[in-house]
């Protein structure tokens, strides 16, 4: 039987993962707060641990947790950091 699929059957290219194994010492880590309750508490703790390992940190905040990050924010993170840690919450 010939059906019309409700799915978008287009194949999507898998995005390659960024290289792993970046050393923390001397690295710049962007801490992304998605703007949800208590996410900042988690990132505060992570930030302390990262400093102990010799990393520098930058903080960024999404406008709202329930919407995709703005392209400009993603570009800024990509340009400024070697690593990103995103703090989910609840």
């Amino acid at each position, binding site marked *: 039987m010939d059906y019309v699929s409700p*799915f*978008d059957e287009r194949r999507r290219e898998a995005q390659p993962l960024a290289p792993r194994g970046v050393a923390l010492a001397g690295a710049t880590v962007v801490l992304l707060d998605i703007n949800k309750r208590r996410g900042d508490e988690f990132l505060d703790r992570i930030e302390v641990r990262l400093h102990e390992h010799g990393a520098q940190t930058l903080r960024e905040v999404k406008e709202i947790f329930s*919407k995709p990050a703005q392209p400009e924010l993603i570009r800024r993170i990509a340009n400024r950091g070697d690593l990103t840690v995103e703090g989910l919450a609840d």
Partner: protein
Amino acid sequence: MVLCDRGGEEVEVTCEASQREVACLEHAGKPCELALEVDADTEAEHRPVEQMLIVVPADQLSGWTPMPAPDFVLPSVRGGPLGLAELRAGGPVVLVFVAEECPTSTLALRRLAPLAAPLREAGVALAAVFEDPPEVAARVARTTGFSGTALAEPAPYEVSRAYRLEALPTTVLVDRDGEEADRRVGWDAAGLEELLTRACGTAIDVTRDAPAVKPGCAAKSTYDAATIALLDGGADELEDMFARGWTDGLPVVPPTRERVAAMLGGRDPGLVLGEVPPAMGEATLERVAACAVLAGCRPAYFPVVEAAVRAALEPAFNLNGQAVTTQPSGQLVVVNGPIRHALGLNSGMGALGPGTRANLTIGRALRLVITLTGGAAPGRLDRATLGHPGKLGFCIAEDEENSPWEPLHVERGFAPDRSVVTVIASDAPLSISEHRSMGPEELASILGWAAAATWSPNWWPLGATSVYVICPEHRALFAAAGWSKERVREAMFAAVTRPARELQHGETTPFVLAADPDATITKWTSPQEIVVLAAGGEAGRYSALLGPCLGMQAAVVSREVVEST
């Protein structure tokens, strides 16, 4: 006997197999090192040579060259479709083709079960592809303890054909480059150990418990069409829909090309309404029509479905957040204007309940667009902790003719004679029984206080839209007092207050935490957060409240229904 290489080219061999172990072969006139191993524990010597277990390491097959493993997308027993591309994202993939009826498949699944974890740790995905419907695959995976990914491929077994299966189980190694790097047929502990070790790059032990070698069964895909039609309920197109994952869990109407064409009614099938989050599937009009067919819509409903999809895809609605949230909220579709009567939408008795095809299927069509085209399958990208029944579909019409107030679409700036769809992110309905109020203030207060516990008894103000569906008897009381819809809203808003100190504990809003303990806190930020609709049967003083979806900044969005093609 005919052997094929991975490219499907026939490899001619001459075979003088003894009843066990090794036969000398010739390929293209030259002796080669191929081995035919037959099961020494069985009556293999009594079987025709075609049924012998053929164990030939793929890279030793003369003339074999690496070939891309055919791509596929199949229903996962955990719900939703899953493709080879997704499986490959982490590295190599080991595919084990099996079927319920094949005892050797059961043996293989049981023995491979404990290896799923070490394979996963080595970055190798282990997936069983069942030549069975999803419900059968799920049961067999469960009973064998198989913890890898389980995919279901019911008839007509196109994936099995693409992989040129002859027998089950067949184990195929797909390497990081997406090429078939190895293949073993039947249960062959030593051969599978080689394959798995090769996949992982580290030694993997496969149990050598007897039987260490066991032939399997013919793949279902090798049978003729008439036989296949009898397998797996393949002749039952309703079961086929479940097998494809084209469902919300209830039976659907199969979207044949004829039905979809009728649904489109001459509209451009390639017209793109937008990308549906969260998976950003492209909502062509044809796919939306397919969802409308699946939902059970009549073609006459399609303009309303299209308008609902257009409204839901407005960025201000933030469908992305709604589709993946752990909250229960779904998408309420409100229909106003003359098309309500043309389609037979129910705004009277049981307006929120079952019984009316137009209401049930229009709401369902929008949900299927989100669930299927958008990929928000419950338990996968839809992460709702509990959900609610309205997520199957939730569409109501306003009883404009028996309302003292202007209908929703007029409130929102449309002419009364226009047909308009409005989408609102909303929770499940809460019924409010109120049979004793004598005045509008008392009634507004009681209706308003029903909202006190929505989202959470402690979460004030809500900061999101609440929907009230006011029944005819309640409307009549307000109308007798000459109350406008705005006055009802303002009275509800004003009635529901608490001192901040009563809310300053547990999980509460930053607003409450920062407030003076004696400050008065309202349940809503403003009366404009309250949407008032008119619907319901004439007898019974039961209105309803639909709680909000929070944290989405989800605007109420309206779109006019365009009936012409």
